[in-house]
Each structure stands twice: as structure tokens, then as C-alpha cells.
């Protein structure tokens, strides 16, 4: 009965109810869209940077990540190649030997990252072969290089041309060699696009003078939520005196920090948005409470307990809020879905600016139930708090006064 009364009371003043619902709808829509776009953009970026190159988890020799020196390379022993047995979430390992080098064609020189890879393991994990624009993918026995598109452009190289690489190898060995360009790959992340040069692992080991050594083992994991158990399993297996097991937030604290900062900016916007909505709802509540004072007086006079009456009014406001949230979510669904399927793609100057900062100018929306749920919870909490006012009023209501209008 209370629920029935609450529901009917909501529709007593249709216009006011619709305005309130519309304002909540608007807030929910805006907040869900912003949140989805933000989550989506970061998810996309992390996927690019993390999954498509670094991997969610890497194993190095202890201290490698801080120094990033090829001198910290380690032998790829059997106890390491057997690691995938440690957890069912590990899909495989991608061994890498990497260091910085100078790449040139005689006239032009650029700094690059030369990475020796196991071509099969690498493409299983990072789908490198699918990024091929021209030419062919590497084979394990090749003595050839795969260039990121940005480097090819800078050095005006194409498939079949020769690239000269110069670096300092393992323990100071001179490393210099030339390789035919076998293929050109393109990365979404501009950062990767202008520095990646791949060699087959054997060729890289010869180049760096590091026979049988690797600098890192990227662990192939399908889903981000599998990261913590995998890290735990690996840490159990590996001697912490010799190896470090790092997940992506540990490897890239900057990325995580930037994400947190960006989220904080959004939270301020949500806060203001909901504050405005809250004042709107409060206005509705104040008017409603004033208008119905006489009616509340009658109800208490004929024997309705203040608690039951307060609960009914509270329920009304919560129902109103939930209605707004529900309609808002229903409206957000297709909008967010649209941007999930058709990512926002920036072009022109703004795209250039984003690329400069290492962002790919594509912003797909995340389609995540949690985003919508969060909005519903915010509205629920908000209305519950605002509904305290009439409940408080009713607690102190004197029927005689209420009915006299004073």
C-alpha cells in the first residue's frame, strides 16, 4: 500500500516529475558518456601500449627495469621456458633482447629501439604480424629487420632497402650491422610507431654480442584481471634475488598516474553536475513538502505513524530518483553503444597534438555495466540523502499546526 501510494504520489504533479526525471536523465547520460569515453580512451591506450608491446607482465633480471641496460641480460634457461606451467592463465612467453641504437641510411640518423624477438611467440602475444603494412613478417632464421612505419618515413626506407644499426652491445661490445628491410609495420601508438625496429632473436643476439641471452620475458596473458594471480604464481617460482616480476602499473607508473589525474578531472565535473541536479531535486522536494503539509497533517491525525509516513515520502523520492536513473541509463545505452562501435576519431591539428603527446587520436567508448551502475548508485545515494529533509519535517510535524497552515 505504501509503495502504491508512493508511486501514485509521484505522478500527482506530472510536469514536475517529468522535469525532475529529465534532469536526472541528463546528468546520468552526460556522466555515463563522459565516463565511458574516458574509460574507453584509457582502456584503448593501455591496450595499445601495454598489451601490444610491453605485455601485462614482464620478467627481467633483477634491477633491469631501473637501468634498462643490455648488460642486465640473462640466459634463457629451461626453468624459465617451463614457466607457463606455473599458471593456467599464462598463454606463453615472448623472449626479447632489446636496447637502444642509432638507425641510419647514410644521410639521416634516428634513435630507435632494436628488439630481438621470437617471431612466432611475439605475434601470438602482440599480433605483430597483423600490423604489417608492406613486405613480409620475420622468420626465426632471417637476418633482416622489420621497421615501424614512422622510422621508415623518417629514413625514407622501403621494403628491400638496407638499414644500418649502430649500438653498444653486451658489456661494451661494439655493435654495428646492416639489415635488409623485410617488412613495415604500423602501430596505433605514435610513440611506438617512431622507435620500433625488430630483428629475429638470433640476429639480435649476434648484433648485440649476447649469444643465448634475453633482456626480458613478456608474459602472454589474455585478460587484465588475470594479472595478479599470474604475478603471484611467477613470484613463487622465481628467485627474487635474481629476477624481478613486474606488472604494467609497476613498469609504467606514469601511465597510471596520468590516468588517475584524468579521472580526478572528470570527478570534479561529475561533482558539479550532480550538485546542480541535487539542487533541482531539493527544490522539488521543498515544494512538495510545503504543498502537502495539510495532507500529512490529516494522515497523522487519522492515525498514520510518522515513521510510516516518513518512509512513504522517502520511498517516493527514491522511486523518483531511480526512475530518472533508469531512464537515464536506458538513454545512455544506445549513445554509449554508438561511440563504442564508432569511436571518436580526431583529425587535423588536434590529432597532431594528441600524437605529439603519445596518444592515438581514437577514443572508443568503453561499454561497461559498472559505469551505468555507478550512476544509479550516485542517484540513489543523492536522493536518499535529500529525502532526509521531508522525513525530518514529518518527524516534527504537529497535525494541528500542519492543518492550520502554520
Amino acid at each position, binding site marked *: *500500500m505504501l509503495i502504491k501510494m508512493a508511486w501514485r504520489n509521484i505522478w500527482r504533479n506530472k510536469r514536475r516529475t517529468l522535469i525532475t526525471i529529465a534532469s536526472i536523465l541528463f546528468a546520468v547520460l552526460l556522466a555515463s558518456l563522459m565516463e565511458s569515453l574516458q574509460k574507453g580512451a584509457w582502456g584503448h591506450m593501455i591496450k595499445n601500449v601495454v598489451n601490444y608491446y610491453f605485455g601485462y607482465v614482464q620478467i627481467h633480471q633483477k634491477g633491469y627495469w631501473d637501468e634498462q641496460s643490455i648488460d642486465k641480460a640473462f640466459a634463457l634457461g629451461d626453468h624459465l621456458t617451463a614457466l607457463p606451467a606455473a599458471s593456467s592463465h599464462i598463454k606463453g612467453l615472448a623472449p626479447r633482447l632489446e636496447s637502444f641504437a642509432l638507425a641510419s641510411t647514410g644521410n639521416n640518423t634516428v634513435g630507435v629501439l632494436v628488439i630481438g624477438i621470437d617471431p612466432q611467440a611475439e605475434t601470438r602475444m602482440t599480433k605483430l604480424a597483423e600490423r604489417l603494412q608492406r613486405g613480409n613478417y620475420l622468420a626465426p632464421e632471417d637476418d633482416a629487420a622489420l621497421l615501424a612505419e614512422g622510422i621508415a618515413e623518417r629514413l625514407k626506407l622501403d621494403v628491400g632497402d638496407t638499414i644500418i644499426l649502430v649500438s653498444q652491445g653486451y658489456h661494451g661490445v661494439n655493435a654495428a650491422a646492416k639489415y635488409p628491410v623485410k617488412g613495415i609495420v604500423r602501430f596505433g601508438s605514435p610513440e611506438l610507431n617512431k622507435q620500433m625496429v625488430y630483428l629475429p632473436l638470433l640476429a639480435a643476439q649476434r648484433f648485440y654480442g649476447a649469444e643465448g641471452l634475453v633482456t626480458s620475458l613478456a608474459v602472454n596473458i589474455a585478460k587484465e584481471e588475470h594479472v595478479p594471480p599470474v604475478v603471484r604464481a611467477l613470484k613463487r617460482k622465481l628467485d627474487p634475488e635474481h629476477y624481478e616480476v613486474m606488472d604494467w602499473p609497476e613498469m609504467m607508473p606514469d601511465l597510471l598516474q596520468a590516468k588517475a589525474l584524468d579521472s580526478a578531472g572528470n570527478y570534479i565535473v561529475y561533482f558539479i553536475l550532480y550538485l546542480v541536479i541535487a539542487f533541482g531535486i531539493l527544490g522539488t522536494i521543498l515544494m512538495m513538502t510545503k504543498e502537502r503539509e495539510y495532507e500529512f497533517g490529516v494522515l497523522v491525525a*487519522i492515525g*498514520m505513524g510518522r515513521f*510510516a509516513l516518513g518512509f512513504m515520502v522517502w520511498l517516493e523520492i527514491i522511486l523518483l530518483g531511480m526512475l530518472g536513473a533508469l531512464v537515464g541509463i536506458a538513454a545512455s545505452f544506445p549513445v554509449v553503444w554508438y561511440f563504442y562501435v564508432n569511436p571518436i576519431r580526431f583529425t587535423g591539428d588536434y590529432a597532431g597534438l594528441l600524437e605529439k603527446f603519445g596518444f592515438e587520436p581514437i577514443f572508443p567508448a568503453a561499454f561497461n555495466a559498472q559505469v551505468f551502475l555507478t550512476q544509479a548508485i550516485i542517484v540513489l545515494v543523492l536522493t536518499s540523502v535529500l529525502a532526509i529533509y521531508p522525513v525530518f519535517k514529518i518527524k516534527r510535524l504537529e497535525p*494541528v499546526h500542519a*492543518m492550520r497552515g*502554520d
Partner: protein
Amino acid sequence: MSVIIAKGISKTYDPDGMPVLALQRIDLEIREGEFTAIVGPSGSGKSTLLNIIGGLDKPSEGMVEVGGHMITELSDNELIDFRKEHIGFVFQAYNLIPVLTARENVEFVMLLQQRPKAEREARTKELLHAVGLDDKMDKRPGELSGGQQQRVAVARALAPKPAFILADEPTANLDTKSTENLLDIMAELNREEKITFIFSTHDQRVINRARRVITLVDGAVASDEKRD
């Protein structure tokens, strides 16, 4: 048997430092089955008196006993329960819950009393029949005339089988025909069902139908006339 015994009740309102003496040392006894009108000029204290004997308001002095309960001793929440169980109210206007139908309005008080569903439904039908509204049971107050609304209010007041019904100017907003109609119903309930009615009024037609008339002037009883 007396259903109401009030002794020495005074009421002083002091809203903003200007004390108003609304009732002065009133003694009153109402017996079961009475059909009593409380009359008097505006501001003479009629509403205040009804509110106090109905447990809606508390006197500044004096005591009120209703059906053996010393209601002047009850706490606020006990008073709510007391009203729910023992008293039927009919106010001047806007008695009904606008979002409930006539049937639901009558049923509502019995719901508060947690009466079984079958009893509620049977009694609601019976009461709405008694006030001549069989065909308006599923209408909301907004779809009823003022007189019909007051009849629903009487039915609702009767629903919990109260010791008596208090009606504060129940006909003030009604036309002559509706007034007569409502009075017929109240008089019949009084005669047939021995329901005790106490109402305040300015209306001479209503006063004429009363069997006891208590006149208040300046918060004191000026006359008390029985007509049996």
C-alpha cells in the same frame, strides 16, 4: 455512560509572545449516542476544543478522559495509536488522500490497524453503501463532489469503529442539498447504529438538527442546551 469527560481544560496559545487564551476552564461530559453541536462565533475555541478531546492537541491545563483512557497523559506516539483505534475525524475539507480511491481511503485506516483483508473489504463496502456511494467506490477524491467527499470522510471515520466521531465544520464547504444529505446520513447512523457525533458548526440548519447544543463564547461554555 460517558464517552468523554473533560475537567478544567484551558488552552493558551503563545505563538510569538502574545498569549491567546483559546479555552478557559471548560468542564464537559459527552454521553454515548449523543448528537452534539458545538457552536459559537469565529475564534471562540470550537476547533481547539474538538482537537483536544480528539487527542490531536494537548490542553495547557486540565484533564481529558476518553473511553476510560486518560489521554492527557499519553505521549505523542501513544496519541497517534489512540486516535487510530478510538476516534474518527471529519475535517472541514480535504479530508481524503488524493491518490487513493474512495474505497482505498476508507480501507486505509483499517490497514493501519492491520485488520484482515476480508474484514476490510466487507466493511468498506458496507460503509460506502451506508453513505450512499456504492457507485463511486473507485473514484478518486478529485472526481467526487464536495458533498460526496465529506460522505467518504464520514465512512472513513467510521471504519475503525471509533468511540465517537469528531467533525469540525463538516458542512462549511457544502451547498444546501449536500448539507442536508450529509446530515441525514449522520443522523441515521446516530439513530440506527448509536454512533456518537460531536461537530462544530456555524450553520443554523445544522444546529437545528442537533439534539444538544453547546455554545462557546471566548473559550468558555456560555450555554449547554439539551433537546430530548
